[in-house]
Structures are given as structure tokens and as C-alpha cells.
């Protein structure tokens, strides 16, 4: 009963704040609404026995990524909505109509899909999502996740170098570009 109430409250917060994010023309307000969405999703992850992912969600998404967004918004001085409000164009109407069709497809796939009955015993769920279990899955040679982990470290290195190269000031005396 408690889990049910928690789910509905969190789902309402998620959907309302994501609608605020899409509807607002002020980027700062959008960013704060997205933080609210991510925090309520983190609480939902805890109820789904993914405690470590919930903590990572708060630290990485609601912390680092959103601070980066706010930093860029303030660096480019976009705090006030400078864009003129445009009349509702054909593109908006078409986008919402197509998204409605897409949502019907997704919901149909979620509701009417006959998932096999999963026999989840308490023994299975014990320790699911703890740091110990995550570390075992990530680093054990019997699990397939060690090579993707190493590849991800190279990806992050490339992203760091690429972000610095893209965002630095171009020297004035370079010829050509």
C-alpha cells in the first residue's frame, strides 16, 4: 500500500516537472525542473532495489550534469528568455501528433506484452543492487562487463579531450581554420 502511494506521488512529480521543463521558455527554469525529475526518479530506483544506481543518479545527473548545464547557461548569458515567442507553427502540431502515435505504440507494447512470470524469490532479490553485487558484476571475469568497463574509460578520456578542444578559444594566428 505504501509502495503504491509512493509510486503514484513520484510518477505525478516526474510527469509534471518534465512537462514544466518542456513548456518553459526560460532555460534555468527548465534545468531546475529537470533536477526535480531526476531526483524523483532516484527515489523510484530505491524502491526498485537499485540503491547504488540511485546514489549515482543523484551524484552524476542531478549534480554534475545539471551543474554543467547551469554553468553553460550562465556563461552564454541565457538566463532570460531572449527568443521571441513564436506562434504555434505547423512543426509543433505535427510533433505533438506524431508523439501521440508513438506513445500509443509504446504503451501498447508495455501493457499487452505477455512477460513470462518471473519466479523472484527472496533469495534472488537479496543483495540486488548493492555495491558488492555491482562490483562483482563489473569486475568478475565470469561476467561480460569487464571489457565494456575498460572501453567506457577510453570513451570518457576521449570526451574530456574533445570537450577541451571544442570549447577553447581558437588562436588568432592559425591559418585556414
Amino acid at each position, binding site marked *: 500500500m505504501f*509502495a503504491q502511494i509512493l*509510486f503514484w506521488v513520484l510518477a505525478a512529480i516526474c*510527469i509534471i516537472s518534465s512537462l514544466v521543463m518542456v513548456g518553459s521558455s526560460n532555460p534555468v527554469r527548465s534545468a531546475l525542473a529537470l533536477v526535480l525529475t531526476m531526483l524523483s526518479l532516484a527515489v523510484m530506483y530505491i524502491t526498485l*532495489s*537499485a540503491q547504488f544506481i540511485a546514489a549515482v543518479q543523484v551524484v552524476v545527473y542531478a549534480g554534475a550534469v545539471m551543474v554543467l548545464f547551469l554553468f553553460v547557461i550562465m556563461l552564454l548569458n541565457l538566463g532570460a528568455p531572449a527568443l521571441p515567442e513564436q506562434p504555434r507553427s505547423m512543426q*509543433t502540431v505535427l510533433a505533438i501528433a506524431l508523439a501521440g502515435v508513438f506513445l500509443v505504440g509504446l504503451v501498447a507494447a508495455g501493457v499487452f506484452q505477455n512477460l513470462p512470470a518471473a519466479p523472484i524469490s527472496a533469495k534472488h532479490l537479496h543483495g*540486488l543492487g548493492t555495491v558488492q553485487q555491482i562490483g562483482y558484476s563489473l569486475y568478475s571475469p565470469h561476467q561480460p562487463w569487464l571489457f565494456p568497463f575498460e572501453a567506457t574509460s577510453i570513451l570518457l578520456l576521449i*570526451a574530456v579531450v574533445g*570537450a577541451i578542444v571544442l570549447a577553447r*578559444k581558437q588562436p588568432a594566428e592559425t591559418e585556414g581554420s
Partner: protein
Amino acid sequence: MLPVSYYLILSALLFTIGAVGVLIKKNPIQTFMCIELMLNAVNLTFIALGRYFGQMNGQMYVIFSLAVAAAEVSVGLGIIVAIFRTRESIVVDDANLMKS
């Protein structure tokens, strides 16, 4: 646990809201936020199904998806800063050439 379809429907709703935002927003920073929302919706699906089947694989996918999202955001915001430097405007309709 609640039926897993509740979580799938919530995830579908969030993904669709994010897709609408990507299609209609003119500010590329808000477009990026909508992409983050779509990634979060997919993460919710992974975790709900992983909990449903009692396996760790869903959560492992979410960890890698988080890392890829962080890399994507850093590079994407770098691109936005570079576009702003060359054009003094970041409306997506103005940035129609790869060449500066």
C-alpha cells in the same frame, strides 16, 4: 512490487515528453535537457525490468548509459559554446552550416 507495466508506461510517457521537447525546442540547451530526459526514461525501463527478472544486467546497462550520457553532455555543451563563439546566437535554426 507493483506490476512492471506501470513502470513501463511511466517510462513511455517520459520518453514521449522528451521526444516532443527535442522536436519543438529552439534553444539547443533545452534540446539537450530533453535528450537527458529520454535517457532517464530508458534507464527506468532497464531498472524496472531488471528488478522484475531479479537480475543485475539491467543495472549494469544503466551504469554504462550514465557514463555515455556524461560524455555526450560534455562534448555537446562544448559544441554549443563553440557555436556561440562563432555566431553570437544559439538558435538552432541559425546554425545550419557545419562550416563556420
